[in-house]
């Protein structure tokens, strides 16, 4: 298998236009600051989220026609920071500050946070009602993250001290297949995509992902890349694991209802069993362990957990809202509508 390589997507506005025009030039020719960012809703802003996603992709993948040195170009990083600021501010508005009592036991606080998931019942809908096309759309959205599953959280590894680092590695080792590439979760997801007749190539569906889908990934990449947000990326992982096993059982059931076999459902069935293990390690040993080591970041751990639930709720609301209107939840349908 060759290394990751994506194509530059089509721009969606002035920010992504400015960025993509610069990226095909030499990094010596500096990228200027963005003209203006006046987004009413940065979380669902097509242009801002796409520009941020591609700026972050420089850390994950080669982009055809783009010099790899752009990754650490000071002008690129300044441009990226200008995109991050309104997104971070919008997330901070959505997430209430942690209460003092919650900081006394971060593990218990996380249990309380995930028990009040603000999102619509997407996994139940997929389990019982979704059409094949809707199910394929959900998989295409998720490929924005799942084909690099766990990578955003791995940025945190060198930032943690011994006990929480050991806990993170215990989770990540299993996520990455326990030393066996065919068990790697990103590989299992690619198998599921192929079994559904979708293209499992990394980044293949980039042009179809709406801004809110890329925002779910930009959130964790931003938390992962900034050391100052090490609490948030840990809280994000804990809440992700804690809200995974039950929805994944439902996704697997949805696929079985539509007649798909174990080669397609394996990714989901594996996550039921795996995340029932990971959620405990992530909540108590990783998040609780980090809070014990660094009490100053305890509030940010809970921020990361709440931010995940909020952004996932917006994403799920977008999918279900589109489907209720009889529309595709992607930027363009997977199967062109009959004329």
């Amino acid at each position, binding site marked *: 298998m060759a290394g990751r390589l994506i194509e530059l997507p089509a721009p969606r506005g002035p920010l992504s236009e400015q960025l993509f025009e610069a990226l095909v030039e030499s990094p010596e020719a500096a990228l200027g600051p963005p003209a203006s960012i006046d987004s009413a809703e940065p979380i669902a802003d097509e242009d801002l989220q796409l520009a941020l996603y591609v700026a972050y992709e420089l850390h994950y993948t080669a982009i055809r026609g783009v010099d790899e040195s752009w990754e650490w170009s000071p002008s690129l990083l300044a441009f990226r920071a200008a995109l991050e600021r309104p997104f971070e501010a919008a997330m901070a508005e959505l997430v209430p500050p942690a209460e003092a009592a919650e900081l006394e036991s971060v593990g218990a606080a996380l249990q309380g946070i995930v028990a009040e998931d603000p999102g619509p019942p997407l996994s139940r809908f997929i389990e019982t009602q979704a059409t094949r096309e809707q199910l394929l759309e959900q998989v295409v959205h998720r490929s924005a993250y799942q084909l690099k599953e766990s990578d955003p959280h791995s940025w945190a590894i060198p930032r943690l001290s011994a*006990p929480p680092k050991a806990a993170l590695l215990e989770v990540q080792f299993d996520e990455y297949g326990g030393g066996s590439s065919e068990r790697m979760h990103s590989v299992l997801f690619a198998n599921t995509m192929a079994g559904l007749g979708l293209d499992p190539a990394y980044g293949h569906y980039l042009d179809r992902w709406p801004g809110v889908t890329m925002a779910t990934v930009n959130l964790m990449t931003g938390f992962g890349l900034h050391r100052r947000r090490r609490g948030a990326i840990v809280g994000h992982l804990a809440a992700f694991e804690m809200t995974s096993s039950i929805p994944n059982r439902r996704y697997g059931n949805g696929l079985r209802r539509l007649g798909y076999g174990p080669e397609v459902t394996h990714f989901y069935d594996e996550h039921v069993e795996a995340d029932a293990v990971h959620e405990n390690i992530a909540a108590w*040993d990783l998040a609780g362990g980090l809070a014990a080591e660094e009490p100053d970041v305890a509030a940010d751990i809970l921020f990361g957990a709440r931010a995940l639930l909020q952004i996932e709720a917006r994403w799920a609301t977008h999918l279900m809202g589109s489907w209720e209107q009889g529309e595709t939840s992607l930027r363009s349908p997977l199967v062109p509508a009959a004329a």
Partner: protein
Amino acid sequence: MGTGTAMPHDQSSPTPSVTITPYPDGPYLVRGDFVVRDQAGNELQTERRTIALCRCGKSRIRPLCDGTHKLIGFKAPSSPEPWPGA
């Protein structure tokens, strides 16, 4: 170990070959060189280094945990519970 309060990543005491840790309101995590067999001697197939055994009784993949304890409000501490009236 044996007090139930040692963290699973605590390296201060000698490491036994298998560790079983009850997690708060959750499953038993089993780490180490273990085998799970049913009464007929059939081995539970798992490639996972750490497994979670159901503690609430309601999992649909028993003896493994599937997260159902969160749906039923299962409560249990990590440390041993005191004898009633103790």
